[in-house]
């Protein structure tokens, strides 16, 4: 157990990170991600209000659907990344644990009269991920098998009312389940009793999301990075890129027109030696970037990383040097993800 953002978090269970990671890709891993912030936004005009802070198309999100997006700073940096679901009469948000204390006042500051943000600190969040996740879960709630990637619906699981989204942070098919905190342990025990389901910790969650090319706020995204630099232009709605009516739009527009100074890329070190976050990236002896997440990919069975490099070095296959303990470790930029996504599209 380690402290993180005020929570005691399991890095690994007795099986260990490697085994938990491989089991999740092979069958199903259960993650306790209750540290994530949950909130709902209620009232007429909630979607339009949220769009002041995010370039995501929230007004175009259909009921029963969920979308990934970023919240922006005034200067065009990323305040946080988040999930938003349309529940019909309200929006449901999932925020980062380490950022929710900033997100909540930022959202409240843009709300018109009649729209209310309600933090939901009494809800836990469990993620069941892997190719075996939905088949196992469908034995408790057959309707989940009919959901597509990024669908969002209420389901009763083991008699417990839950909010289920077919999404996750591993690149695998699976679900995230919001549950009243007092019933979270009962639900977790019911899920762990399903065939093929084993517990997995934060360590495996990190190696799975890195192989899947997914960003971790605080590592790969922060207030200095823009969505254009972070290669998250796909999260910006088409309508939003016509109107440019969101916080920080000027910088995004300028970077889309003229090209950003740096870009987030995948980085594949040669050989077996991992390069961790904060490793400097050089080309011809000059520093041109930095690794933001790096480690060993158990499914790839090789070291993997992502980071920011100068735009001129961002093309796939560009040769780089990673400065690990004073020595240049050869590497190349590469496409993300390292492990193909297997979502239920």
């Amino acid at each position, binding site marked *: 157990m380690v402290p993180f953002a005020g929570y005691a978090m399991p*890095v*690994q269970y007795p099986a*260990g*990170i*490697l*085994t938990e*990671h491989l089991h999740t890709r092979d069958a199903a891993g259960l993650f306790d991600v209750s540290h994530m912030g949950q909130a709902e936004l209620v009232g007429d005009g909630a979607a339009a209000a949220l769009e002041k802070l995010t370039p995501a198309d929230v007004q175009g999100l259909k009921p029963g659907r969920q979308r990934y997006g970023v919240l922006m700073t005034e200067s065009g940096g990323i305040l946080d990344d988040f999930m938003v679901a349309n529940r019909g009469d309200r929006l449901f948000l999932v925020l980062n644990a380490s950022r929710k204390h900033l997100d909540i006042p930022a959202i409240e500051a843009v709300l018109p009269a009649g729209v209310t943000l309600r933090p939901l600190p009494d809800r836990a969040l469990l993620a069941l991920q892997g190719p075996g996740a939905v088949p196992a879960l469908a034995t408790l709630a057959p309707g989940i098998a009919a959901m597509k990637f990024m669908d969002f619906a209420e389901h009763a699981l083991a008699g417990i009312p839950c909010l289920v989204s077919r999404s996750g942070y591993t690149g695998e098919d699976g679900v995230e389940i919001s549950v009243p905190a007092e019933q979270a342990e009962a639900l977790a025990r019911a899920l762990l009793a399903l065939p093929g389901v084993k517990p997995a910790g934060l*360590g495996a969650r990190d*190696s799975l999301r890195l192989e899947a090319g997914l960003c971790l706020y605080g590592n790969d995204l922060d207030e200095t990075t823009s969505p254009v630099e972070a290669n998250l232009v796909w999260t910006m709605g088409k309508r939003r890129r016509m109107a440019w009516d969101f916080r920080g739009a000027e910088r995004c527009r300028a970077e889309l027109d003229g090209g950003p100074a740096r870009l987030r890329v995948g980085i594949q070190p040669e050989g*077996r*030696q*991992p390069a*961790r976050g904060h490793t400097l990236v050089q080309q011809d002896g000059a520093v041109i970037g930095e690794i933001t997440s790096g*480690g*060993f990919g*158990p499914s790839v069975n090789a*070291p993997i990383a992502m980071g920011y490099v100068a735009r001129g070095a961002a093309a796939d296959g560009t040769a780089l040097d990673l400065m690990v*303990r004073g020595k240049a470790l050869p590497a190349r930029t590469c496409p993300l993800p390292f492990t193909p996504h297997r979502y239920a599209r």
Partner: protein
Amino acid sequence: MAELRFTKDHEWVRLEGDVATVGITDHAQNALGDVVFVDLPEPGREVAEAEACAVVESVKAASDVYAPVAGRVVEANAALGENPALINTDPTGEGWFFRLAGVDAAAVEALMDEAAYAAFVDSLA
């Protein structure tokens, strides 16, 4: 086989003649988790006591390995390049890191014995 001596940085040493074999303890490999890479010192390198001279990388993190005593590196365990998991499966046997020659036997003797190291590990819990 000579008995093992231990450091507070969780290395073990086995002295045979004036050659010391060095590795990391079972407690250390357990804390690190699955080892995926080791960076070992080149033979011929002179190392001082407590000098960082190897790196062990697990899925979780990178950690330095320190020379328990001064000496000259005469051999690094080539088998770890192919199979670093030997450190997890046999930390005090096949999973050894490197060998030092010209080692002062009294310096090895001054390290913790098995009982003292076990008490030290218990004191960390």
